[in-house]
């Protein structure tokens, strides 16, 4: 579904590449964690999939298509096939929950009847039944993220990209979000989630792709993630022993 072929992304010639020689393939229906500390290249990875940026070298394939060959007027069509969720939710504060979700359908020209039918369905999937008419500020962070997920999947994309979706949430709420993402994955959507939350990664036991300083350092099925702090903690006793 997503394939990186020796991809390098350089934003600034004078600093190290944001991504360096990344080759990875994520199949249809996969659930993959993209882990690494801040600045490791997770967000750049997501931007390249969305064609927000061009790869400096190498090729990015989405649904079998090299995104470099997609003309700019076809980019919206590429993006309709990809849902995106962010750490900061990005809801429209002056629209209700239902209107926020419906917005994603309106702007690509879905008919009113289809919208009326689909929105409650999707809200149910993310566990927000009966909250259609609430405003975003009346919801908890976890609920707001569920709205954002509902908006991301309402047009039934084949891929869901989540960039630190639990970054602003407490652990319990995060697990709730994870179960929503898991359910969406069960329905056949490929999910790629960038995170540095090792608790979640270790709990889920899904594929882990680890980036460090723009390089791919690990790609394991059912992997765990040892965060930077844990690594340090693990290293400390050895140092004191010497």
């Amino acid at each position, binding site marked *: 579904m997503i394939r990186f072929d020796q991809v390098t992304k350089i934003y600034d010639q004078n600093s190290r590449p944001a991504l360096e020689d990344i080759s990875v393939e994520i199949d249809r229906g996969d659930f993959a964690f993209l882990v690494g500390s801040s600045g490791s290249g997770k967000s750049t990875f997501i931007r390249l999939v969305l064609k927000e940026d061009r790869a400096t070298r190498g090729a990015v394939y989405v649904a079998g298509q090299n995104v470099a060959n997609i003309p700019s007027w076809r980019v*919206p069509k590429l*993006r309709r096939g990809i849902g995106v969720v962010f750490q900061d939710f990005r809801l*429209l504060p002056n629209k209700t929950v239902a209107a926020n979700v419906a917005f994603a359908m309106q*702007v*690509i*020209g*879905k*008919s009113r009847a289809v919208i009326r039918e689909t929105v409650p369905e999707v809200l149910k999937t993310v566990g927000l039944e009966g909250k259609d008419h609430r405003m975003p500020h009346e919801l908890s962070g976890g609920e707001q993220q569920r709205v954002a997920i509902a*908006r991301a999947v309402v047009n039934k994309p084949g891929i869901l990209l989540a960039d630190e979706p639990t970054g602003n949430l407490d652990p319990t709420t995060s697990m709730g979000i994870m179960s929503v993402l898991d359910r969406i994955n069960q329905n056949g959507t490929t999910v790629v989630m960038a995170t540095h939350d090792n608790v979640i990664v270790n709990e889920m036991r899904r594929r882990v792709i680890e980036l460090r300083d723009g390089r791919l350092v690990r790609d394991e099925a059912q992997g765990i993630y040892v965060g930077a702090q844990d690594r340090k903690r693990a290293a400390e006793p050895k140092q004191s022993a010497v």
Partner: protein
Amino acid sequence: MRLAFILGEIASGLRRNLSMVVSVVLVTFISLTFVGAAGMLQLQINQMKGFWYDKVQVAVFLCVDTSTTASCASGPVTDEQRGEIESTLKSPAVAQYVANYQFESQADALAHFKEQFANSPIVDSVTADQLPESFRVSLVDPQKYEVINEVFSSLPGVEVVVDQREVLERVFSVMNIASLVAVGIAAVMIICAILLIATTIRLSAFSRRRETGIMRLVGASKAVIQLPFILEGVIAAVIGAVLASLVLWTVARFFIGGWLADQYPDTAFISDTSVLLIAPALLLLGALLAGVSSLLTLRRYLKV
């Protein structure tokens, strides 16, 4: 559905940016009024040219007692000289340029003079023998005045050859300058309008960057994202153009058609229907101005 959505976006954009939209309306209104005024002046010039050029003549004035020019040194024109001049007019070399001609005697000249200066006390002090006789020559092509001038000014008994068109040209050149000034002001105002529209669209795009960001992510097409902004500018500019057209029509109807036409019944003025010719051009210009400037602004400030 998408149309309803776009219309809704436009309405909310206009509401959010009301003060800027009003200023765009006013600036396009003023600038297009000047553009329209220049257009109307040009139409008026053309109208007057059409009206007068049919009537203007080359006047060949003959010598009288009081003539002081060198060609009249031998005194007033004689019958023989007058006959000579008339036969020259009829000669094939000259006749090809002449549409028709008319002899104006001193009595005719006095009658015309009295008519022209009816309200002036000067009329009483003028007598027929002070006014020169003349041949009033209408030319096939008024531009060929020089030919007539060359032939007749050297003939004995001719005091001077006058091209009445010259007097009109002076009037027209004043009107042309006025319309150039109007165009100049319009140009400055149009630059203001373009910059103001660009700023307004920029603000509008900035205040709605959340929406457009989400639209981009869920794969809304470029048209759906950009159209509300472009149409916002175009609607404001078109309202300005409509106001400008209304003002021009009012001026044409009540000032030119009403007051001026009463004051100068002999002059052909443009009617208010000429505004019907200018108004569509103004609307088009306004829409184009706003469309192009917002499109260029969006290319820079609204990534799609």
